[in-house]
């Protein structure tokens, strides 16, 4: 399992276009990826899906933890980390 904790800095958070890019990136890999919004402690760790991203409400400044397991877990975490750190190319 590969794990990373990131801070989401883009203004809309993980919604709208960033959510779309995020989900599509996860879909491009084989590993299972889960996300937890550490800044909303009442939310659970959930698989990365469009609906789950809505549910856990990641806004600007929130900390998230991503966990991936599968044959390309390191690659998918690296790709997602790059997206978040580069603010989804915005």
């Amino acid at each position, binding site marked *: 399992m590969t794990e990373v904790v990131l801070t989401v*800095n*883009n*203004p*809309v958070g993980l*919604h*709208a*276009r960033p*959510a*779309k890019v995020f*989900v599509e990136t996860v879909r491009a890999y084989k590993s299972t990826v889960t996300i937890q919004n550490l800044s909303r402690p009442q939310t659970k760790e959930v*698989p990365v*899906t*469009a*609906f*789950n991203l*809505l*549910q856990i*409400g990641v*806004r*600007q400044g929130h900390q998230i933890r991503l966990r991936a397991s599968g044959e390309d877990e390191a690659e998918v975490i690296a790709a997602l980390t790059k997206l978040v750190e580069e*603010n989804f190319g*915005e």
Partner: protein
Amino acid sequence: MSVVLQGAGGAAGLAFGPAYRWQRAAVAIDPPHEPADAALARFHAAQRAAVSRLRTLAERQRAAGLREADLFDAQALLVEDETLTDGVTALVLEGKPLTQAIQTVVAQMQAVLAELDDPYLRERAADMAAVGLELLRALAGDHASPTIPPGAIIVADDLTPAETVDLPHHVAGFATAGGGPTGHTIILARARGVPAVVGLGEAILQVPDGTSLLVDGDAATVLIDPDEAALQAAQERMAALHAARQRRAALRDRPGQLRDGRPVALWANIGRPAEARLAREHGAEGVGLFRTEFLFLDRATPPDEDEQYAAYRAVLAELPDCPIVIRTLDIGGDKPLPYLPLPPEANPFLGVRGLRLSMQRPDLFQTQLRALLRAAVHGDIWIMLPMVTTPADLAWARAQVQEAAAALTAAGVDHRPNPPLGVMIETPAAVVLADQLARDAAFFSIGSNDLAQYTLAVDRGHATLAARYHADDPAVWRMIELAARAARQAGIPIGICGELGGDPNAAPALAGLGLDELSMAPASIPAVKERLAQITWAEAQAAAAQAVGRAP
């Protein structure tokens, strides 16, 4: 006897026609005892069909320059969502009919969102409901939309955004039981130009098909079975509106001018490259204000030179051979950006904003200037500086332009070194020193909103003082008069790009003060053009004398 129903909101216009109760296409009947794998195959096909339909709608909206496009993309993503797919699959494997499985899972997902503590996320529950309807629609197969008689008024409980944009073009208007004044349905109706009223309550659903309905989108009312008198009044209003539209459409390709031929150019204010097309469609002869803030907002890092260059070129491509006035970044401490930390100010409107911000961040200003000089090779770009108060401000900016041009020359990049550099007149200081500014500025443009605010010393958003804010106060008119006189003496053009510029009632006085160009929201151009075409230069001058309080 006629009955009036009051709605929660409307899309402007009047429509009269027979009620047509709009039904969602009959929901597919699940075959009895359908095997799970057959049901799931139908489900997956429906998902694919719904995604492709929503993506097409998104592209269509995007091509039309509407921000609603993202909404359809978000819904497409939810159609394929794993929570939905897994939930439906589990229920189908338990033996539930497919249609019921979809309805159950969508309702559960909707309920989860509706309970969240974040208003933005709660609103997404409506997206989820729309996604469910799209899936059921796709499941029912690609039925041609029911034959809606031309000129009918669509009556429905509610319409999803996709349904709204998909109604045939011969629909006269629509009236819905649900929906609010700021919902997507009403926004899309306005974009389509269809008169509509939403939020009428259940009563509208009781109306039998074929009943005469008068939809008044301006008043947000629906008149059921209007009597002769009401109908006649409405028909007169409709005829007048129609005639006005026709008259204005006929003026579209004529330049703005007074009745006696004196030219007053009508330009457009735009905030995004996509709006340049709207400007052209409304007969704009140029862009008097292209706000560049959209490039800088909602992001974590500033836009680079190439991104800005592409945005400026996009506008030039839409309006070739037209002057395009591009305003450099105009924000202040009231709207801080993540990459531009500005210390909180006690009075942001008297603080670091407009050009003053560029002075603190010359790196950002240089990037924007380089992009502008490069784009200026391809069209008639004018650079406009916001929040200038002294000739020293203008001199500083001119030195910056020279620095940007020198850097581009050194790098061997194609550019135009000296496009017109003008000043937005929005502070009393700029007005009283207008003669000095006019010596070095290539043009002036009155920013009447801020000019009124600073002149009258009233915050136009102030809870109790806002009533004292009038952009057409004689004090403001005299400011405009002074600036116009300075511009005329120096022989430079002067325009206006504040809200006053789009007010047909203000147009005669603005022309009378000698403004060369009025810039406004694209949709305001036809009415202003018509007003100007009705008056002579002498009448315009009389209106100006009246406005500044010096009428004989």
